[in-house]
């Protein structure tokens, strides 16, 4: 039994705690208020804890780097930028709550987020209601700029349709049209597989596949099925850790001798964490750091590495682009009001030092989707540099892969 003389000790503890807490809470708004006159506040909600934290952290890194860069050059509309980061903890209720907090209490002008598309969608309902400009840096499901598109929401990363349409012709050309899908059974997985099927059948392909639970850990049953089907390509649509395990088991069973491996996204954060044998297959990168022919990229990567000691991934780029897009839209609209920012952003083309890739990169007006290049290529163990795990084979312009606005199902309703 604990011989802890409770009564006096605990009471003092509580009093001290309450005093401390109260002092923080009471002074906080005054501190915020004092700065509020000057800075432009941008709120970023991302799942910093939970299974998506590695990706979320990269987005935050990119956004913070951009914040510093923007402030060094004078800020937005002559005011310094303040990036407020909140953790959505991969939970919708928390994400929505934090969004409300950022808008109601902290008076942010812009909201960024979330990596988790379900949360991004729920957040967009709040931002739409409050007429706040909202950019989704990295949440992938199609409806955000498709059937659920909103006048105040823009997206940096690609739709699943874009990613699947970009890589399919390459895979068919190289390996063949008989495919096998391993897909997680939820909205994102379904939209990936549907995208692939659409692109594949256009080229006359055939397929079979399995839907597995999102957190499935053992793939042997489905890999056996795949082997029996003898496809040209196996599509690994699983995400996060399950994607890694699927790769591992595929290689463990020696299936790479019988068929090629591919899919949509295999992100740098994930690739670096796996053993060399699992660094394989054909994938899309939504942005890639190694573009020796583009001077802006070389400069950016060098400076980013110096500042953060890591090589930027697509996620870092998403955060970076989101922040700069706000700056560019604000400068064009000369205002921070939601509707004005939104109309300034439509069809806005990113300058080369923000786009960081060749070609015209713009936010399409019809669905508010950014149209960058999609880097299709092959993943391999590091050559020299530990980040050199991907070789770009071909770059597909986003607009080519995206299809028309009508096909996305977006019917934009303008603000009243």
């Amino acid at each position, binding site marked *: 039994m604990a011989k802890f003389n409770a009564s006096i000790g605990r009471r003092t503890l509580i009093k001290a705690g309450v005093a401390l807490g109260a002092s923080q809470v009471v002074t906080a708004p005054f501190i915020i208020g004092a700065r509020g006159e000057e800075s432009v506040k941008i709120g970023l909600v991302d799942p910093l*804890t939970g299974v998506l*934290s*590695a990706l979320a952290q990269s987005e935050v890194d990119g956004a913070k780097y951009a914040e510093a860069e923007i402030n060094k050059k004078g800020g937005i509309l002559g005011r310094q930028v303040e990036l407020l980061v909140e953790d959505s903890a991969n939970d919708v209720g928390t994400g929505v709550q934090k969004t409300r907090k950022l808008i109601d209490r902290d008076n942010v002008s812009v909201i960024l987020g979330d990596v988790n598309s379900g949360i991004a969608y729920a957040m967009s309902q709040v931002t739409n209601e409050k007429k706040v400009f909202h950019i989704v840096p990295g949440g992938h499901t199609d409806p955000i700029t498709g059937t659920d598109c909103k006048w105040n929401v823009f997206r940096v990363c690609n739709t699943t349709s874009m990613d699947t349409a970009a890589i399919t012709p390459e895979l068919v050309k190289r390996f063949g049209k008989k495919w096998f899908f391993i897909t997680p059974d939820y909205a994102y997985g379904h939209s990936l597989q549907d995208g692939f099927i659409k692109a594949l059948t256009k080229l006359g392909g055939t397929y079979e596949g399995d839907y597995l639970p999102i957190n*499935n850990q*053992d793939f042997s*049953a489905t890999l056996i099925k795949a082997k029996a089907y003898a496809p040209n390509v196996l599509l690994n649509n699983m995400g996060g850790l399950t994607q890694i395990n699927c790769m591992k088991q595929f290689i463990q069973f020696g299936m790479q001798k019988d068929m090629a491996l591919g899919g949509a996204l295999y992100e740098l954060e994930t690739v670096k964490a796996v053993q060399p044998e699992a660094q394989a297959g054909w994938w899309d990168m939504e942005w890639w750091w190694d573009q020796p022919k583009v001077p802006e990229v070389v400069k950016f990567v060098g400076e980013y590495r110096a500042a953060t000691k890591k090589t930027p991934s697509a996620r870092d780029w998403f955060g970076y682009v989101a922040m700069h897009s706000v700056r560019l839209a604000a400068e064009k609209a000369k205002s921070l009001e939601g509707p004005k920012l939104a109309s300034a952003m439509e069809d806005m083309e990113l300058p080369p030092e923000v786009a960081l890739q060749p070609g015209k990169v713009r936010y399409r007006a019809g669905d508010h989707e950014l149209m960058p290049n999609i880097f299709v290529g092959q993943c391999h163990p590091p050559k020299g540099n530990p980040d050199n795990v991907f070789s770009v084979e071909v770059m597909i312009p986003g607009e080519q892969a995206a299809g028309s606005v009508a096909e996305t199902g977006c019917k934009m309703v303008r603000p009243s």
Partner: protein
Amino acid sequence: MIELILFNLTNGLIIGAFYVLMALGLSLILNLSNVINFAHGNFLALGGYLAFMLAPVTGYWGALLISPLLAAAIGVVLERLMIHRVYGRDPVYSLLLTFGLAFVMQDAARWYWGPNPLQIDMPDVLKASLSSSLFFITWYRVFMVAIVVATVVGLFAFLRYTRVGLRIRAGTLDLETVAALGVNVKLLRTFNFGLGCLLAGLSGVLATGQLGLNPNMGDDLLMPSFIAIIVGGVGSLAGTLFGGLLIGVAAAVTAAVYPAGSEVVIFVILLLVMLIRPRGLMGEEGMLS
């Protein structure tokens, strides 16, 4: 067709073996101390992370041997520091305590080792596959089963034939009498807790070879362990063993027939057992009820 069934059964036993190891540790702690160790999944992760730290120094085999012991040591320290204070109190407190502990351990792992998944280097002999034409089994899976079998046999032998084991079993049935007979119950419980954490840590090292290492890895394995215990019968270690194998096989067979349902099936089994035989398949009436 028969081959497919055979394969899935084997696969199920392999998955089940793994659940068994996790669930046995949880069951030990539950039976003797009446504490649901919510942090059990975190001890699993801890075992994996310790192996990750040790492997460069001691090699894989050394890490396999030492990290469960280290995990057990940490478990013992935590038990002495705080967990023993909630024995005998309303179960709400032990649940909240281990729940809070789980949060702290998970966040600590994420803070210290980072959110990115990590790997342990396995000896090449384990990575090879046994046969990739018929059975998709790598030597690693065989190895895992072998370790589990050895551990389970060792555990049951320990409980049956050693004095400490006897005391633990007696304590599960009637702790008061055991104390009255002069056994140091405090020490017994601490040892028991350590033993449970040892099993969790071992599961962690084995899991790392299969799944890789990340701070959340214990979460997905905690629920199947609970279910294995309830289905097998609370209070019965043999029941836990059987329950773990049953749900492993069920999950594997479902994965072959209706893949999307392979997670839900273990809950279906839980429901059926609760409806038909609420005390569990091998549970004894009166045990913790």
